């Protein structure tokens, strides 16, 4: 089904095109979700587990932030 059809069906309930657009999934959201999960995975590994194991219990490895500078 094309998006235009969604707008057309939405009209049955007086839903404007802009409101119907809001109901649509956006690829941008999927990309953001993947990025957030990816970053979280990296961060938890770097900031949480690594210091617990190698930094004598310090929760935040500040070295992580300067590592890429």
């Amino acid at each position, binding site marked *: *089904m094309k998006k235009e059809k969604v707008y057309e069906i*939405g009209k049955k*309930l*007086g*839903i404007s095109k802009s409101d*119907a657009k*809001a*109901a649509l*999934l956006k690829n941008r959201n999927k990309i953001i979700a993947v990025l957030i999960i990816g970053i979280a995975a990296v961060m938890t590994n770097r900031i949480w587990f690594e210091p617990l194991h190698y930094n004598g219990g310090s929760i935040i490895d500040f070295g992580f932030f300067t590592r890429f500078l």
Partner: protein
Amino acid sequence: MFSKKYEPRFGLYELTLRCNMNCIHCGSSAGQKRTNELTTDEWNNVTRQLADLNCKEITLLGGEPFLRKDWYEISKEVKDRGIKITYMSNGFLINDKTIEKLRKIEPKTVSVSIDGSKSETHDKIRQLKGSYDKCMEVISNLKKAGINTTVITSINKLNFEELPELRSMLLNRGIVWQLQIAIPLGRFKKDLLLSKEEYYAAAIFIASSRQKYNIKELPIIGTHCFGYYSKLLRNPMVFPWNGCQAGISAIGIQSNGDIKGCLSLPLEFIEGNTRENKLLEIWEKPGFCSYNRDFKESDLNNGCVGCKYGKKCRGGCLGVSIGITGKSNGDPYCFKLIEENPSILV
């Protein structure tokens, strides 16, 4: 062997089949009470058994649950067992005394049915004059008393076009709005069933409302029949669809003690009675809710045959599938099906 995979976390009690309304869409054809309905002690015994089975939430419905004089005693047992309680009512009988008792119970929510934005529509569907005004007043009173309140609207051809107006009425009132489609079971006639196009339009309406208004302005949700696996629409439900939960995490108990995986299912799905067996025995019985527990992809029917989500989805809502097509595991009101074959909308 009993598996934790199947745990009756959600119990549905049909407290009585007696009802003060005669709704045209009632799936249980409620009105007269069943012969030999469970007594207070028997319901409380059921609650104790469910608590032992790790039940987390019990919904009291009917019929009209508040027609039972012992609804408070039954509710109290649920509360005392640490189980959350919700009510589904037509609202008509909820007075100040009821509200006072409800405050003691502290329910998760009290759901009241409103089936139109106009009194004529609601009263016509509910077949009780003055019910709209009364129920709207009850909703305000429940809110004033600090009780979480939900409005449930069963959408059919008579009230479909009133959804936008009803939304305006519920805005900024702190009331949850739950929408479901009326299914041709019980008294509901097929000619009032939404067309697939109207169903899809209602889904667009819910999904767009969820974007347009934040959760404080209007918490709006589609029930489980608003699915499944759309590639275009945001999910109108709270959670993604994971298949019918009858016999997986849900159990329904009729007012005469008969057990079904879900109360929406027809009589042929009765699989035991609390008076004859303990709930644990029924729940653990091999073959209980086999339509879900022993589901095979070859069980799929109608447009669901060959669907890649078939194993997980199990053909959508069993009640909707049977109500509309007469066959199980083939709910035709499916986003994926509609989006892949828009020609079926014509």
